[in-house]
């Protein structure tokens, strides 16, 4: 589906993406950790937001990529799209774990607990479990084409399931007991918004960069296996 010429052109942008994302993240971190003011209520703890929120968004971005890629794979059966999905899942695990861990670190001083059964927390944890299940499933299938199809099916089912998980947990919490813990609707001060925007752009670029690198790696690995007469009967297009 993607012609080799276009692919080559896209891959030339790898380095630029990496450098740009590094630049944005560096500026964002500097502004967030040093320049921006501490929060009136939360104090210095608020600074973890500059990592947590962008990483959570990047995790959702990876999973959306995974879902769309899986749909395209089932439609076109192009193995490089499958490599893209595989890459997106791995990156998704990375971003989701970081988002969960930083959220936990933030929750301890703010909510005085490491973990609470909040809808967003639970759906993120479920998302992590689905992604890990997805990656494990891939390792256990021997045939490459079968692996790609099975994984795509798993990703689509998981993506459809996540909103239902979110709403069910939300009902479960709100009806069981009043939300003892809730985030106040904070309207963000400009001094905090600027580093957040920088970090958002930076992590989006970072996830794109990682996605391209990883896709390239997996693709070359396939090519190598095909050359060695390994698992692929035909050379990937």
């Amino acid at each position, binding site marked *: 589906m993607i012609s080799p010429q276009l692919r080559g052109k896209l891959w030339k942008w790898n380095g630029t993406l990496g450098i740009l994302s590094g630049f944005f993240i560096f500026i964002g971190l500097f502004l967030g950790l040093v320049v921006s003011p501490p929060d009136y209520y939360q104090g210095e703890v608020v600074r973890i937001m500059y990592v947590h929120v962008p990483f959570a968004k990047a995790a959702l971005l990876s999973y959306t990529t995974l879902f769309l890629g899986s749909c395209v794979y*089932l439609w076109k059966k192009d193995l490089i799209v499958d490599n893209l999905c595989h890459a997106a899942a791995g990156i998704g695990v990375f971003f989701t774990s970081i988002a969960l861990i930083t959220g936990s670190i933030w929750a301890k001083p703010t909510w005085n607990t490491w973990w609470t059964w909040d809808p967003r927390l*639970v759906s993120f944890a*479920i998302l992590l*479990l*689905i992604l890990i*299940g997805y990656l*494990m*499933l891939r390792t*256990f*299938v*021997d045939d490459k*084409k*079968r692996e*790609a*199809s*099975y994984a*795509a*099916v*798993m990703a*689509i*089912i*998981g993506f*459809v*399931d996540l909103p*239902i*998980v979110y*709403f*069910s*947990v939300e*009902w*479960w919490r709100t*009806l069981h007991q009043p939300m003892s813990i809730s985030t106040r609707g904070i309207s963000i001060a400009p001094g905090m918004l600027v580093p957040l925007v920088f970090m958002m752009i930076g992590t989006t670029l970072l996830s794109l960069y990682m996605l391209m690198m990883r896709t390239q790696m997996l693709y070359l690995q396939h090519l190598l296996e095909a050359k060695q007469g390994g698992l692929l009967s035909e050379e990937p297009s």
Partner: protein
Amino acid sequence: MLFFNVIKWILWKDILSEIRSRESISSLFFFALNTLFIFSFSFSVDRDVTFALMPGLIWVAFGFTSILGLGKSFLSEVHNDCLSYLQIAPVPKGAIYLGKFFGNLLLMLAVEIILYPLFMIFFNLDILAKLPSLLIISMLATVGLSALGTLFSVLTVQIRAREVMFPLLLLPLSVPVFIGAVESTQGALSGDPFSAYRHWIELLFIFDMVMTITSFWVFEFILDY
């Protein structure tokens, strides 16, 4: 017509082989019975405590049983290469899914219907009047579990580490079923009016619809990978 005939014959074949061998239903029943005993040893026999824990106990038992039962629903097709013949059969693949799905649904419902009286006896519960609403809840939750379970069963039947992968894929995705089933069972057991737990029934219903339709649609891509 072919579509419905395929569903009918696949379902008939599963029922017939189950009637002849009685493999699944007896093993599932005794497994659930064992779980039930373990529960009663693990928790105190205090009546109030048991009553409070009951919805959770019922659904943990049903959940484990369905992992065991649904996980091997396509295993019988692997013997004698039946799965390959299903793959090459010139019939709509969705119909094969629905046939297996109804077979699994009937099997799980049969086990659950046998188990409810046992819960009543062993945990000294008086739930006879609430049995109809409990059965409706079981039905709805089991539809969701079977829809996902049938799909993941065919997904894992031909891979390595099948027994591990099946629950790993099924359990995170069936979180809404368990929440909905436990909450509505709680409502039904404590004798609340239907309107108090209606939204849980609706949740189960939505989950059933979404998962059955999605699984039906993607099943084709598993057989014709």
